[in-house]
């Protein structure tokens, strides 16, 4: 029997694979089912957003940001508009800022719902996906009424928002909050206690706070290790300093903590939404005083906000023209993904899917 030779199996996972969330590819070396080496390959969805932006004016870039993190287009809109506003020192009317905040929090709920559904689908449960998409549909429909699109909203503008809320829209959001709170409990009953599910994700993909910080992780991927870092709280932007909400943290830094955190973040988002709807001014402008030509003064600025996936940043280098000289997005999915090869070594093929799903990437954002 000594003559039998064994060798490692080189397996291409993706770019066309049901669980790589799009066109992400990992080359894994397998010893049996144990991964000895994993090399992520990205770029299959690269559209050159940053390069394209150098030839576009700032209003034209906004639809492109929709397409980066297409699960959370509103936060992408916001980070660009906010960066330009900060450079130009523009005032945003209060009602517009409230509308932005409301749609961003709704977007966070929608984004986490997509994550929840697809994660459970990765783990092998079919129904949660449809449960999540049924409720996400409510949000998408509300956005459709507000901005006229279901996925790529192009809703925010430098200095304000495109539309005021249509009549009755805010009431629909108000009704949505208790509905969603009830649904979260249903989700908990459906999945969170399931023993198979727990055994699949508890203790999987574990890392400590130091590693997380060294890899530059952000969002739930960082908070699951116990680091309380949420830009909405740590460096408040928009109107977040006016609201009461908790920044939930985990302690084990495994997939299960990330799962719980994201569900908790939905609850916190609903809490913020409820307060925002109460404090919102009745009427007012939705577009601030913006010069006809948006030309940020020469210089650089970096603005970061908390997207559902972590810290999304926008770095503008301006030479005083209508187009940016250089535009750079710090995409949380891309940064969070960097820890993947380290986490995968020694895991099984099955855990690869669990860990990759737990990081919560959107390939449009990874490749931009």
């Amino acid at each position: 029997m000594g003559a039998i030779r064994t060798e490692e199996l080189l397996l291409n996972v993706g770019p066309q694979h049901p669980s790589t969330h799009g066109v992400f590819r990992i080359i894994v070396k397998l010893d049996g089912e144990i991964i000895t080496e994993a090399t992520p390959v990205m770029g299959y969805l690269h559209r050159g957003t940053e390069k394209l932006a150098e030839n576009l004016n700032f209003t034209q870039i906004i639809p492109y940001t929709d397409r980066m993190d297409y699960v959370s287009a509103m936060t992408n809109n916001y980070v660009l508009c906010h960066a330009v506003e900060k450079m130009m020192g523009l005032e945003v009317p209060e009602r517009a800022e409230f509308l932005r905040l409301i749609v961003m929090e709704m977007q966070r709920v929608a984004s986490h719902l997509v994550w929840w559904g697809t994660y459970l689908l990765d783990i092998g449960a079919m129904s949660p996906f449809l449960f999540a998409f049924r409720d996400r549909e409510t949000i998408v429909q509300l956005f459709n009424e507000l901005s006229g699109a279901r996925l790529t909203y192009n809703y925010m503008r430098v200095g304000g928002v495109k539309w005021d809320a249509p009549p009755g829209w805010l009431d629909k959001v108000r009704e949505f909050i208790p509905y969603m709170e009830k649904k979260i409990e249903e989700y908990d009953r459906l999945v969170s206690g399931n023993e198979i599910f727990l055994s699949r994700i508890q203790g999987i993909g574990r890392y400590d706070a130091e590693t997380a910080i060294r890899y530059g992780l952000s969002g739930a991927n960082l908070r699951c290790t116990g680091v309380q870092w949420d830009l909405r709280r740590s460096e408040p932007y928009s109107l977040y300093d006016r609201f009461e909400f908790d920044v939930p943290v985990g302690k084990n830094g495994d997939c299960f903590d990330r799962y719980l955190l994201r569900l908790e973040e939905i609850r916190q988002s609903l809490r913020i939404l409820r307060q925002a709807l109460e404090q919102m001014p009745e009427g007012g402008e939705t577009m601030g005083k913006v010069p006809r030509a948006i030309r940020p003064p020469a210089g650089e600025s970096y603005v970061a906000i908390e997207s559902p996936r972590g810290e999304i940043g926008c770095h503008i280098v301006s030479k005083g023209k209508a187009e940016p000289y250089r535009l750079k997005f710090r995409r949380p999915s891309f940064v969070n993904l960097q820890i993947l090869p380290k986490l995968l070594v020694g895991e099984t093929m099955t855990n690869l899917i669990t860990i990759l799903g737990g990081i919560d990437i959107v390939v449009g954002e990874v490749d931009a």
Partner: protein
Amino acid sequence: MDWLSASPVTWYDALFVFLWGVVLMLVVLGFVTYAIYFERKVIGWMQFRRGPNRVGPFGLLQTVADILKLLIKEDTIPRKADRLLFVLAPVLAFIPSFAVLAVIPYTQKLYFADLNVGLLYYVALSGISTLAIVLGGWASNNKYALLGGMRSAAQMISYEVPLVISVTGVVLMSGTLNLRGIVDAQSGGWFWDWNFLPQIIGFAVFVIAAISELNRTPFDLPEAESELVAGYHVEYSGFRFAFFMLTEYVYVYAIAGLATTLFLGGWHAPAPFLDFIPGIIWFALKFAFIVFFLFWLRATLPRIRIDQLMGLGWKLLLPLSLANIFLTALFYELFQR
């Protein structure tokens, strides 16, 4: 079917047997067609969808259309595949799945083969399908298929053991391996005379092991869609793929029939005053419940991991089923003599 052994077999008898086989085949095909339809409907309803409703009234012809599409699809064999094994695997998978149906009795009168070792025959034949899945996975010359095939081999061998041992308790109680005999032994009139209560441990082990044998959620690792794309049948398409699907659903039929026979009292009514309803209806009801239960599980549960699956099989189910035999034997030794 005593006439078979009573006189030499004539051509007439052979034709008769063959026709019965065809009838069973048609019944099974009808079951598979509508089991798939029913599964899609039930899972659809559980997910706030309507399920198939486009082809025919209420979508009743959806599966027929699907099968037709598979049959007229171009037959592809990967260039680097092992052609002979690749072609052989789906056939080898299907034949035992159909052959095991022979021993399942539907009512007192309606049965196909009255084997004295019926249970043993079932277990022996169903093991062959594993071979076919491994062959299919190997012959495809695809890494995902290979992983699926390997998982399948590991899984089915590990779960064959607790499956067989869990039913030994039933055999001890009934004193026969003949499936009709086992049903007859449960004829107390009430539902607590059925085996599933006295053999509750055996029943639980049997259900878990059976679902695993069927490769269905939560034990659908060999074809784990989110990891292995489609597992062992990644490279199969057209009617060869249809055969793998058919095998899977015929085994659903077989396992549901076997569970009904072994643990749920076969054709017996749950209470004496319900005896006026024919046995075949009772059989069908219990059978349908088990099939529904499988679909229900599929709509709810996530997939288990391969190492946990092995752990569950060897560390929990096997000791439990052994303990069950021991307890059953002890009980009979102490009280029934």
